[in-house]
């Protein structure tokens, strides 16, 4: 995949700077424009200010955890329909179920293979990024 004139925008949400950096590198290399947020509440505020095509959201974060964040991204105040990929260290089926109930599209357990993350990000945004010739992506 090559970077387009209007790269898809992804928000990486994790309280660990190391994880934000890692996901950021992987996704930038895959052609995305990456922004970061350090917890769920900051992510909601970012989503209210800018438009994103994809969210990568960690579960365990201070102030607002990932599930609450996803619920608010989907809720009336933000109303995002962009794909949401949750990433977590927890590996229990109850966690995945909670992620989907909150409105996430996918739930992945850390560590996420970089190639897989890039592939999934591209696949998830292909359906929604409207990059038709002659038309600017909003």
């Amino acid at each position, binding site marked *: 995949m090559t970077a387009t004139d209007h790269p898809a925008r992804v928000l990486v949400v994790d309280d660990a700077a190391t994880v934000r950096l890692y996901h950021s590198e992987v996704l930038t290399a895959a052609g995305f424009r990456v922004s970061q947020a350090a917890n769920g509440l900051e992510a909601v505020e970012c989503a209210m*200010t800018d438009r994103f095509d994809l969210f990568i959201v960690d579960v365990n974060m201070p102030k607002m955890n990932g599930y609450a964040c996803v619920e608010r991204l989907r809720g009336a105040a933000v109303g995002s329909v962009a794909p949401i990929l949750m990433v977590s260290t927890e590996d229990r089926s109850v966690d995945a179920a909670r992620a989907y109930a909150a409105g996430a599209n996918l739930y992945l357990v850390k560590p996420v293979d970089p190639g897989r993350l890039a592939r999934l990000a591209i696949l998830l945004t292909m359906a929604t990024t409207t990059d038709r010739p002659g038309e600017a992506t909003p």
Partner: protein
Amino acid sequence: MSATAPAPRAEISPALTDADFQRFREFFYRRTGIQFANSKRYFVDKRVEACIRESGEDSFAAWFASLRLGLRPDLIQQAINQLTVNETYFLREDYQFDSLLRSVLPRVLADRGRAGRGGPVRILSLPCSTGEEPYSIALRLIEEWPLIADVDVELHAADIDSAVLTQARTGVYGARSLQRVPESWLYRHFTEVGGGHRQLSAEIRSAVTFSRVNVCDTDDVRALDRFDVIFCRNMLIYFDELSSRRAAENLYGALRPGGYLFLGHSESMSRISPIFAPCRLPEGLVYQRPAQGATA
């Protein structure tokens, strides 16, 4: 476990390395939510170096270790002070007063209408410092809110520091503080008192109720009764985790359900408390006390 503060030193180790800058930037972002772009490198370096000199520590590493360990809260305060803009003046961050007039007050009135509630619209400015903020609100309302003739508005202002409250009640300001105030407003609402200073009219001064309040003291804040709008700008950023949470709780209690809270331009509840809901308005973000309780 608290350390005695060493005396300020004249020289320190060479200027910040790239690694130092990155570490400090990440710490500051984690703590305050404020991100410094690489283009701000010079700005950050100079101010951090000033902090290190003031602190008496002999290197970035020693200063940063003290900062991180929380052994010297004064260092964090000073760093935040140095790296944020703190000057107070009339019509500072004016877009928020735009938001008040164009977006927040209409919503407040609509909520009151639906709830069948009367009485004055109550607005609080805390910390009010020397009064520029509450008086700015008063001036914007008088000069630019069409409904001011029809709706009663109570303006309250509070600060922990009695000295600034005294200055605020006196209402005398210099050119620097007044530089953004339109000429016509100066003419209508201020009197020259010599030395390039002007005094705000007695009418506007008497329209604001000033009180001494410590925002972390629940009783202090509760004595104020509830507000429709609170301005709490550029204060919470200085508080540590527990104090900022307690202050947020008190501000929550001081708002009517559905009431609005403005923080400073570069502040965010994301580093303080999730009990307020961010609300997107045309002029920017504001926070709201939920109309009903939110589930945990």
